[in-house]
């Protein structure tokens, strides 16, 4: 059944598609297969729809959000766009605090959905957006900050949605690979899979940005999301813009999947793991997340020119 009462009801239950060309061994007795979970098929085109709706529902249930309220959220883009859609349909205002070094498409989408954007300085990246949002929350006590980095409903959305969907569609799953931002996807899906699948490996891919983004004044200004628990993970990889772009293009070239840049980083980590397993002559079914489509990144030059040029253009941009 693919009929729904409203757009919000169409969230989740995304397709899982095989990568027969990029997988090290698709057939045979010990296949090493890669599977892409197409989270760009969600209502606003990213995996963040899951967390946004879950956080709004939880805040409504506990009485923090009432009709006419204004929601405040620090976001590098996708969570803001998801919240903007949900806020519009449910009658809330939305103020997003977003680093100024994010793509123009994200701003346009947020404005189109009626969100107000407050820009935080490029230096310091999302850390600065989080700090600015916390100041704004203190100054505006009637605004409701859902705070994706520490909101249990974020991870719970994946524990109840992404995880069970994966196990239903791929009972032979051996590895799950996703991006590490708020850590909600990995914590929620990871906990669910660890309960159901003995020895499942949970692998994080995090973006490695240009130096500007790491421009803190001192180490104590660093940030680890409150949701993060490293006991859920098996390994964690840092992926450069160059490798992320290279894999984003591989995905189009070999499998026809037009994904955003963070998905390239996730695929890079997944392929690294796949090669290790194939080298040991073992079998594996590796599921990874396509966090969003490529549409919001066209203006960054990610899909044209040489890889080196594209990587240089991304320097200083937040692409995940």
């Amino acid at each position: 059944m693919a009929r729904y009462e409203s757009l919000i009801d169409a969230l989740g239950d995304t397709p899982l598609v095989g990568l027969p060309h990029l997988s090290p061994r698709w057939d045979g007795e010990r296949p090493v297969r890669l599977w892409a979970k197409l989270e760009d098929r969600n209502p606003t085109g990213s995996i963040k729809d899951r967390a946004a709706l879950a956080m709004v529902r939880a805040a409504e249930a506990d009485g923090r959000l009432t009709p006419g309220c204004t929601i405040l959220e620090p976001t590098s883009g996708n969570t803001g766009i998801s919240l903007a859609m949900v806020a519009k349909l449910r009658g809330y205002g939305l103020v997003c605090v977003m680093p100024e070094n994010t793509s123009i498409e994200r701003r346009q989408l947020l404005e189109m959905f009626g969100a107000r954007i407050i820009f935080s300085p490029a230096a310091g990246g999302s850390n600065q957006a989080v700090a600015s949002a916390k100041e704004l929350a203190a100054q505006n006590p009637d605004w409701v900050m859902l705070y994706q980095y520490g909101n249990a409903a974020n991870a719970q959305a994946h524990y109840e949605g992404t995880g069970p969907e994966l196990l239903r569609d791929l009972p032979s799953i051996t590895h799950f690979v996703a991006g590490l931002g708020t850590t909600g996807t990995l914590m929620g899906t990871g906990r669910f899979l660890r309960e159901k699948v003995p020895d499942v490996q949970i692998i994080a891919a995090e973006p490695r940005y240009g130096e500007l983004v790491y421009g803190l004044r001192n180490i104590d200004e660093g940030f680890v999301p409150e949701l993060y628990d490293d006991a859920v993970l098996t390994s964690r990889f840092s992926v450069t813009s160059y490798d992320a772009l290279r894999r984003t293009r591989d995905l189009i070239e070999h499998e026809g999947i037009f994904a955003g840049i963070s998905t390239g980083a996730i695929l890079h980590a997944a392929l690294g793991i796949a090669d290790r397993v194939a080298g040991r002559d073992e079998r594996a079914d590796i599921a990874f997340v396509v966090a969003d489509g490529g549409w919001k990144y066209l203006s960054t030059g990610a899909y044209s020119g040489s890889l080196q040029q594209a990587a240089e253009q991304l320097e200083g941009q937040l692409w995940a």
Partner: protein
Amino acid sequence: MAIEVKIPTILRTYTGGEKSVEAKGDTLAALIDDLDANHAGLKGRLLTDDGALHRFVNVYVNDEDVRFTGSLETALKDGDVVTVLPAVAGG
């Protein structure tokens, strides 16, 4: 045994502004001791008083986070690249 260590902007006051320095060591712990011998004070910024990795410091050997490969006991070999980065938010 030479290992390249990439230093983040915030810690380059200890390396005379160098983005990347060479150091030696069979393990990450030994490498950090060697780094500190040539760039005094660096160890104190990477490790806590208890000798564990600072919560807001991430260290990667060939792009893999050492917290999942043995932490300070992670083995190193010639040609490895060690990257130090402060923990920052995503999302």
